[in-house]
């Protein structure tokens, strides 16, 4: 299955933020959107999810024009993991996860036995059984991210869209989330994510789209796109990209270079 953007322009209330971009993500691929703050990564994300209508161009989901699909049809194909925000009410974790089944049941019905079973098995798969009866509001940032991950997976989607899945996470949790992303892609799921960590694109072998000023939109393999020249241009600030051999593997390092005060 393929999620495709065809000359897609998006923005709010007629103001174009992202102009005419095209890309394709297939099942089993990891697609990582990189770019500076305010360049329109989230806007592009919301447009693909159908949360805001495109200004121009089209989004294709499995060969169908997304504009002609209902929220429920989109939700069945694409599971969304938003950046976690503190919610207003203290739902139980199991209740939050089972809400992911809403796209699989009728609008006028409640989740039944199979839906609760699906939620249970996703919790087991992600190793978060112990969170089942906790209150969502009392979880740590990392735990909340895992619960949102579970809520997206429980509707058995073909694609996952994750908005900065590793922000606010410590190294341990980053490793957990990234290896989960890797294994879900290996299992045939397509993953589309935004990130502020180019190194994570290398870590999970992602295809990268680098968004830069003046409508820059470069798509390709991580090694092809994440170069000193491209990164420095996109972030309008010098960026170092290096490959470091480490115990038989290659580490990819990517860091901003600070201007020295005496220069």
């Amino acid at each position: 299955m393929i999620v495709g953007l065809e000359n897609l322009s998006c923005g709010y209330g007629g103001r174009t933020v992202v102009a005419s971009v095209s890309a394709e993500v297939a099942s089993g691929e990891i697609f990582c959107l990189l770019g500076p703050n305010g360049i329109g990564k989230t806007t592009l994300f919301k447009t693909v999810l159908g949360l805001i209508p495109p200004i121009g161009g089209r989004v294709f989901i499995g060969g169908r024009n997304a504009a002609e699909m209902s929220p429920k049809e989109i939700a069945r194909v694409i599971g969304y993991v938003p950046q976690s925000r503190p919610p207003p009410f203290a739902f139980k974790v199991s209740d939050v996860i089972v809400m992911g089944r809403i796209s699989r049941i009728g609008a006028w019905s409640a989740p039944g036995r199979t839906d609760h079973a699906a939620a249970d098995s996703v919790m087991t798969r992600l190793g978060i059984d112990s969170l089942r009866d906790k209150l969502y509001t009392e979880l740590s940032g990392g735990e909340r991210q895992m619960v949102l991950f579970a809520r997206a997976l429980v509707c058995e989607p073909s694609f996952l869209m994750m908005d900065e899945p590793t922000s606010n996470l410590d190294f341990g949790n980053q490793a957990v989330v990234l290896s989960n992303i890797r294994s879900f892609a290996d299992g045939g799921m397509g993953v589309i994510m935004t990130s502020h960590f180019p190194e994570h694109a290398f870590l999970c072998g992602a295809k990268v789209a680098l968004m830069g000023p003046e409508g820059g939109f470069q798509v390709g393999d991580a090694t092809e796109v994440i170069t000193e020249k491209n990164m420095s241009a996109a972030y309008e600030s010098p960026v170092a990209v290096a490959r470091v051999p480490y115990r038989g593997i290659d580490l990819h390092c990517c860091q901003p270079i600070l201007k020295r005060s005496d220069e």
Partner: protein
Amino acid sequence: MNMRHFPKFPLIYAIFIALMAAAALSATVGRYYMPLGDMSAVVWARISGHPVDASLAQADVVLFTLRIPRIALAVLVGAALALSGAAYQSMFQNPIVSPDVLGVTHAAGVGAAAAILLDLPSLGVHLLSFAFGICAVTLVLLIAGLIGRGSGRVSVAVLVLTGMVITFFFQSLTSLAKYVADSENKLPEITFWLMGSFARANSYRNVIIMLIVTALGATPLFLLRWQINAMSFGDEEARSIGVNVRHTRVLVIICSTLLTASSVSLCGSISWVGLVVPHIVRLAAGPNNDALFPASMLAGGLFLLIVDDFSRVIVPGELPISILTSMIGAPLFIYMLFRGRREWI
């Protein structure tokens, strides 16, 4: 069905039993003294079909023409207002929203005041008040829809703000109606209506109307309870997990408005129930509408029934309901702010 998914059932049963007990006791409360023994004798006479003992003839009349319809009405109105508040709080992602957030209560007050000024009979007061309530919410939806047209959707903030403006508008109309009302007879009547009372509404006709309306409004809300659960995570998250946010929101507003407008048009403005009851219930039952909706309905009925009992016995005449709901509701609410803080912030 696996009981694990309904862990709050004991609580719902407990409230239900409390409600039944309160209803039976409420029948004995009032100016006409009716001990439980007399009451059960009268009820048994009706059930068995035997003629009622002459000494109990008055008890029979008091129980069946005054108290039973009044108890039923108080329970139904309390249930309707509490459910409407619970659904709104969940949908507006805000625990301090009440059923009158879109202006329905104040508009219904203006309708009633206008009907009183025009010397309409009581049916006219109910109907005009109901119509005004519905019109106000329709107006809010239209204005909010127009404002949101540019961005393609209507945000919760726009709806709530528009509701506030409409509320203020109808508040000033209420003041105008009071200002022009004849202070000898019309003004007291308007004032009394605005403070809510079951005294003039307790007929079986009204009970049946309220029963039908509650069924009509509550059924869709119950069926949509999981969609409404999802909406408390915000419009975008709800949509991304497959909720048709626009349709669900309009349906919830229609049902809640139906429940509130009919309650208010029959019994006058009754404040606090729709705000405070879902709060207290959420503390005990959690925010999942699976448990919150039924528990709120039962607790709302219980709360308003007890308040109405007080209003019947505290003073020789009748104390308007809203005076007592606020007097009991306000300290309860403040207690909640201390007790429940962790739960919903």
